């Protein structure tokens, strides 16, 4: 089947999509956007979190056909050109990135949290990011990064 979807503001078309293919597979293997990660492909780890019509979703759990005519924003769409989003900047600056495999999903989830709750408390950050597994950092520096990003966004 053919799927038409807006990805990071651009109209994209994928041909010969098999009916069982996930949005994650189409993004990674057909549209050349490997940023969303394939860590569990079961909706458990959050590494493939993308915005689907503005709402965070695990791209591995969305059938590609369901995205027809809809709007997807991936980690590749968070920066504007060379300018990183404050969430991306803070993750680098605060040492929240180690192996980095969980990072794309965490960035989308953290970006969404700060959009909804501009000044989140620690317990709100923990609750919002509890669906994103990280095996390297122990999360402390991820908390630092989200606090820092919220502060940055508040002054911009």
């Amino acid at each position, binding site marked *: 089947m053919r799927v038409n979807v807006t990805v990071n503001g651009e109209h994209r078309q994928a041909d010969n999509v*098999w009916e*069982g*293919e996930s949005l994650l*597979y189409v993004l*990674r*293997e057909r549209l*050349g*956007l*490997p*940023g*969303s*990660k*394939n*860590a*569990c*492909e*079961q909706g*458990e*780890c959050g*590494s493939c979190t993308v915005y689907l019509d503005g709402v965070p979703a695990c791209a591995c759990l969305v059938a590609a056909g369901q995205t027809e005519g809809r709007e997807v924003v*991936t*980690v*590749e769409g968070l*920066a504007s050109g060379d300018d*990183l989003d404050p969430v*991306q*900047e803070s*993750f*680098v*600056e605060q*040492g929240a*990135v*180690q*192996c*980095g*495999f*969980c*990072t*794309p999903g965490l*960035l989308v989830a953290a970006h969404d949290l700060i959009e909804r709750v501009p000044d989140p408390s620690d*317990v709100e*950050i*923990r*609750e919002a*990011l*509890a*669906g*994103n*597994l*990280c*095996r*390297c*950092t*122990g*999360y*402390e*520096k*991820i*908390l630092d990064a989200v606090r820092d990003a919220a502060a940055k966004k508040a002054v911009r």
Partner: protein
Amino acid sequence: MSAPARSPQELHDTIAGGIGESPLRPDGTLKVRGEFAYSSDLWHEDMLWGATLRSPHPHARIVRLDVSRALAQPGVHAVLTHEDVPGENVYGLKYQDTPALAADLVRYQGEPIAILAADHPEIARQALKEIVVEYDVLEPITDPERAAHDDTLKKLHPGGNVVRHQRIVKGDPAATADVVVSGVYEIGMQDQAFLGPESGLAVPAEDGGVDLYLATQWLHVDQCQTAKALGLPLEKVRLTLSGVGGAFGGREDLSMQIHSCMLALRTGRPVKMSYNRLESFFGHVHRHPAKMYYEHGATRDGKLVYVRAKLYFDGGAYASKTPVVVGNGTTLSVGPYDVPNAHIEGWGVYTNNPTCGAMRGLGAVQPTYAYESQMDKLASALDMDPAELRIRNALSEGSTVVTGQVVDFPAPVAELVQRLRDLPLPPEPTGERDIRELPGGASNTTHGEGVVRGVGYGVTIKNISYAEGLDDYSTARVRLEVLGGEAVAMVHTAAAEVGQGLVTLQQQIARTELGLTRVSVHPADTSVGDAGSSSASRQTYVTGGAVRNACRAVAEAVYARLGVPSEGMSLVGGKVVAADGEVVADLAELLGETAIEETREFHHRPTYPLDPETGQGDAHVQYGFSAHRAVVDVDLDLGLVKVVQLDCAQDVGKAMNPDAVVAQIQGGSAQGLGLAVMEEILVEDGKVRNPSFTDYLIPTILDMPPMRVDVLERPDPHAPYGVRGVGEPPTISATPAIANAIRAATGLELPRVPIRPEHITGV
């Protein structure tokens, strides 16, 4: 054939900072933009997808294997079995005992039987179902203690079921003491649970060889094993490290390396293999479960008199790192304590359980949980503060460990415990509490009623680097040249960046040694000498030492070109500077169009094998020490645990990148927390019951408490820059600290981790 369209990148990001500073990762921006090429992102326009058929049985004889129907499927390009392995159908890290593809016997559930390549991953998955395998199912051996001692059991391998037996005898093994405590402790099978799946892309080459891009911990050892199975000379099997999504020991053994190369060579096309999470649980080795019998004897004033222990490590179907686990487990079995008398025996055995191998804290995690449980039991028997007991017995510089080796470097064990004890405890809860911070969290199981608090300590000793006489070394190539009018350095090693920050560290060392700002890191590959494995907390020490040596050789070459004696000269800010501070030359002018390139190795000082009878010998090059104090809240009614605070003190010798050191300690502690309260691969009759992130639980951000990290720097005079390996110790000491805190809260024995709700409630 061309390189993959998405492939490993050189890291040019210039972020100033030398040794002792905390520059940011050169790969950080690529990673937050989603542009960093991990092994599962590799892509070639002409590529096929590989897939693996695995045994559903833990133990079986293969009586028929027919791939003809699978091969006939449209879109399938090759289906291969053990008959198609071009070279030797056997590999292994310590012993060569593992078939690349099972021939006649299956020894664990998930053992690879056949592989195939197809146009689409779904075609590949469907085609696997068309492969016909008839099994004669056999009774599995699953009890490691029986496997070690019961000679009536069948032998899983020609040499019997004991992979390694090691005895350690120090002082009087039959010593007696006033106060004696004993216990039997068990530890479940933990998984590395790295997030990036096993994956790689094999590209056939015109010379009949193959280029493999992959995630691994040790390129050269993969190259050796893969070439042998492919029947190719080493130089025809070239490996390049792609982005690695975590490792923690789980990438030390081969997974898809031989398989993807076999398929690429057979089809003449690039073949990508990428495991899904289910397959990942079967496709890599796990941490050894263990059963440990311990007896401690002490004087009434709390001085250890003896330790006696028997340790059983379940190695599963193949040897992997079991010999090393037995070596580490026994030599570290009494912990960071002065013990005059000891009698220790350790066994690593074959069973039909999943194969166990390397995981962070290799061989030290299991005994530390046991002896630290014993230390609390002993403190209780002596009516002594558990921290005080540890301080009273702490080993220090000059102590003799259980193998007779003298600790000839700082060992601030007592200080670590003292510093933790002096940290303020979190305030006792009062009034109404946010349920999200209570055991059970948002599931609203309690509002604080039935919740009790406990505090516990855990302290560990871990050997750094490879041991027992192995010549453990690394190689680095450093090139100095002028680009854009500026002197720049390129560092090239085969050392695997698995997330720990080695790429940053390589830049820091080169900047410091060569007095430059611009340093880039070449992708790690096998076109440069061996760097050994990114494991055993060894890369900063060994590859750091190699980069230092190569940089110093480059500096020597600069002075030689100038014709000045190197004595007193240094490179600072792109200039050659004399002892009196006078600028002798500008580096960029001196180099001009030419480059200077030097390759050097670093070997750490030798270690020696253990005496087979007494276990005496200078087996280890260095030890790392860490200590944790955990505070937990336990819901006694439901058995739910919330770790409230987890603090760590660790000696790192020299904090080469202080922020990265703290991050390693936090991440390691999280894995230790996981083992304490949730992480276990459940194996029943040799079969894995929970191979998914739905059922194998790792800590989330809600499970990790706030951490205070206290980093000590007591330089090791034998190590480059005084460094001490950092990565493993925090994983080891976190687990017993949490277990001891839960015991303190509940008064229960709790002789097994992970501690589950039913262990606390008794239901």
